[in-house]
């Protein structure tokens, strides 16, 4: 499944998510936002949140997920190795469900498309003996 398909599935499944963007170190892999500048701003903010949150912890440590709630809405960021997803919701979302949907989307985007099954060649019919060499 590619990023676009994973994001399409995400927005179909989760009615709470307003916007989402898949990204990694190379840049944005996909977004539900029509405006590319808006997607870039969302990803930049998500990256800043991850870096800012990690900096507040003495001894560092990898941030795996983050939920930021305001009166206007919430921002979620989930990391899976180098892959990340950022999403926005309205106020008071069901955080557990949103995290679950975002993780499913990340897994879906990372999954290799299923390989087409090899069809077995029909067995060649055994050639009948010619009777040569028979006593």
């Amino acid at each position, binding site marked *: 499944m590619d990023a676009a398909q994973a994001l399409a599935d995400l927005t179909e499944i989760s009615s709470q998510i307003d916007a989402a963007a898949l990204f990694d170190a190379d840049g944005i892999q996909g977004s539900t936002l029509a405006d590319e500048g808006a997607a870039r701003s969302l990803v930049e903010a998500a990256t800043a949140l991850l870096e800012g*949150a990690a900096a507040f912890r003495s001894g560092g*440590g990898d941030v795996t997920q*983050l939920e930021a*709630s305001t009166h206007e809405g919430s921002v979620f960021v989930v990391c899976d190795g180098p892959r990340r997803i950022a999403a*926005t919701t309205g*106020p008071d979302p069901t955080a557990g469900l949103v995290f679950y949907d975002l993780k499913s989307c990340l897994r879906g985007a990372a999954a290799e498309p299923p390989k087409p099954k090899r069809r077995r060649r029909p067995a060649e019919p055994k050639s009948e003996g010619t009777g040569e060499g028979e006593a």
Partner: protein
Amino acid sequence: MKRKLLGLLGFATGIFAGSVLYRRSAGRRRERVDVYFGDGSMVSFVDGSSEAETLLPIVRDALDAARR
């Protein structure tokens, strides 16, 4: 007498339920940033803390960007 007691009990139950609901909704409405780390720990930066003061403006930027 019995009626009075029942009325009083109903009133007290109503006040208790109302206060629980109010506390829940007020608590939920508080702005905060919950951060989950790889080692399984979680830190919550609530509104008013210096960490939240740094992170919440970024959150508002992200929300603005998504609503553009």
